[in-house]
């Protein structure tokens, strides 16, 4: 067993142990069961190609959130950054690509956390909606008893224990030295941004003009076009074109978009955003040629009549 497998093994063993000690809670059992399955699947497919056990563990924990929609607040980013910084300080050699990916994932989690916080902060509107038209004065039927203790006095007192202290509001005028100092800081900051932009450009993800990718895409389009032809004329639900799994659904969907752009098919959706997606061959049936699929016409996407 290699290092990676051992790491994932540790995570899985830990989850199995947790599962074993909470045997009286069905919900938790199911939840942990799901964690185990995901961890097993991830064993073969991690976003961060690192040999370092620590980095792989961190990446795996992050993936649970970023890819599997686990609660982002289950990750303590402060602890992570402390551990990671400590590791980087000790390390003689840091793989910047791996570090960059991990930082990116941490950023993604931070964003999910803030989205979550914003979502939860919406509560007052929900409350107000619930009680709309009702006189809520003294209406405490749904309120949990709250141990007020000594703080109850705060509710009724006119003289609060805290007062905004009055201090002088002081600001000093800016000088030329401040301006020059600021320029030097700004220059440093913009130099760092430039370096970062270069780095991002160098290690950016392969774009869609990539040759290998294009060939692969052309094969996909051709395969999907073949499936379309088997259906003959008339509207075809996208679901019927898919053979198996999520990956195939994506392949079919992307190919359909290209076929629409080529002007070969119409695509439309019955009830956006979740309704069934349909496709219908647009060109006369007798002149449909497979080789056309590889030639993408130079038509603006807005002008292609994709919605029937």
């Amino acid at each position, binding site marked *: 067993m290699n290092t990676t497998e051992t790491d994932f093994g540790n995570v899985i063993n830990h989850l199995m142990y947790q599962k074993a000690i909470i045997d009286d809670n069905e919900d938790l059992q199911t939840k942990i069961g799901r964690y185990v399955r995901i961890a097993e699947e991830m064993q073969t497919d991690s976003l961060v190609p690192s040999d370092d056990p620590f980095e792989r563990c961190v990446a795996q924990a992050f993936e649970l959130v970023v890819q599997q929609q686990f609660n982002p*607040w289950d990750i303590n980013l402060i602890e992570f950054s402390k551990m990671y910084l400590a590791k980087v300080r000790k390390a003689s050699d840091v793989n910047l690509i791996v570090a960059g990916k991990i930082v990116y994932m941490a950023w993604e989690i931070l964003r999910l*956390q803030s989205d*979550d*916080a914003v979502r*939860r*902060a919406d*509560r*007052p509107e929900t*409350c*107000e909606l619930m009680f709309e038209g009702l006189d*809520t004065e003294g209406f*405490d039927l749904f*309120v*949990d008893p*709250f141990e*007020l*203790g*000594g*703080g109850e*006095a*705060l*509710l009724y*007192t006119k*003289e*609060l*224990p*805290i*007062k*905004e*202290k*009055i*201090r*002088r*509001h*002081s600001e000093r005028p800016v000088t030329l030295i401040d301006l020059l100092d600021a320029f030097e800081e700004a220059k440093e900051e913009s130099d760092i941004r430039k370096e970062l932009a270069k780095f991002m450009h160098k290690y950016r993800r392969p774009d869609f003009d990539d040759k290998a990718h294009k060939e692969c895409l052309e094969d996909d389009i051709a395969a999907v076009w073949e499936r379309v032809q088997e259906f003959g004329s008339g509207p075809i639900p996208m679901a019927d074109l898919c053979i198996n799994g999520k990956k195939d659904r994506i392949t079919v969907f992307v190919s359909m978009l290209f076929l629409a752009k080529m002007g070969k098919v119409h695509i439309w959706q019955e009830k956006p955003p979740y309704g069934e997606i349909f496709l219908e061959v647009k060109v006369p049936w007798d002149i449909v040629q497979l080789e056309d699929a590889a030639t993408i016409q130079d038509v603006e996407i807005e002008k292609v009549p994709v919605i029937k």
Partner: protein
Amino acid sequence: MKSERALEAALFSVGKPVTVSDLKLASGLDARTIRSALKNLMDEYNSSDCAIEIAKMGTRYAMQVKGEYSLPAAKLADLKIPKDVLKTASLIAYYQPVLQSKLSDLLGSKIYTHVRTLEELGLIRKKPKKNSIELTTTKKFIETFGIDARSRSEVKAWIGGELTRKNGKKL
């Protein structure tokens, strides 16, 4: 120049609460001299009948108007926190960490606006918890209200102490 006077000038000019290190930078004096001079200054100001005091809040010091003279000063000063928001702030300080939903049970839905104001002023911090948001006070809370505390639990204890003192009994 006596070191007390240099620090007096610094505290007056800066307005906001500052640490011994800040004062070191401004005055060029060493930390030991600063600490001892600050003690003398605090004794001098706080025992006199003048309207200004030097307060210590955790590790920071500030020159400010004595509580009993805040009324004439308040009209000219740029105060930011309305009275009812202050009530919400004191409840957060006393019960922290406290769920926003609990606070709403106590004071009604107006607290959501108060919480937003307090957060914008940097006085409290929000953290998602269960299906609500947990609220705690910040370092700026300590400074704004001139509380001699270094941590959230010290703030909590301080408010408790003030309540006991005011009500003349243990709460």
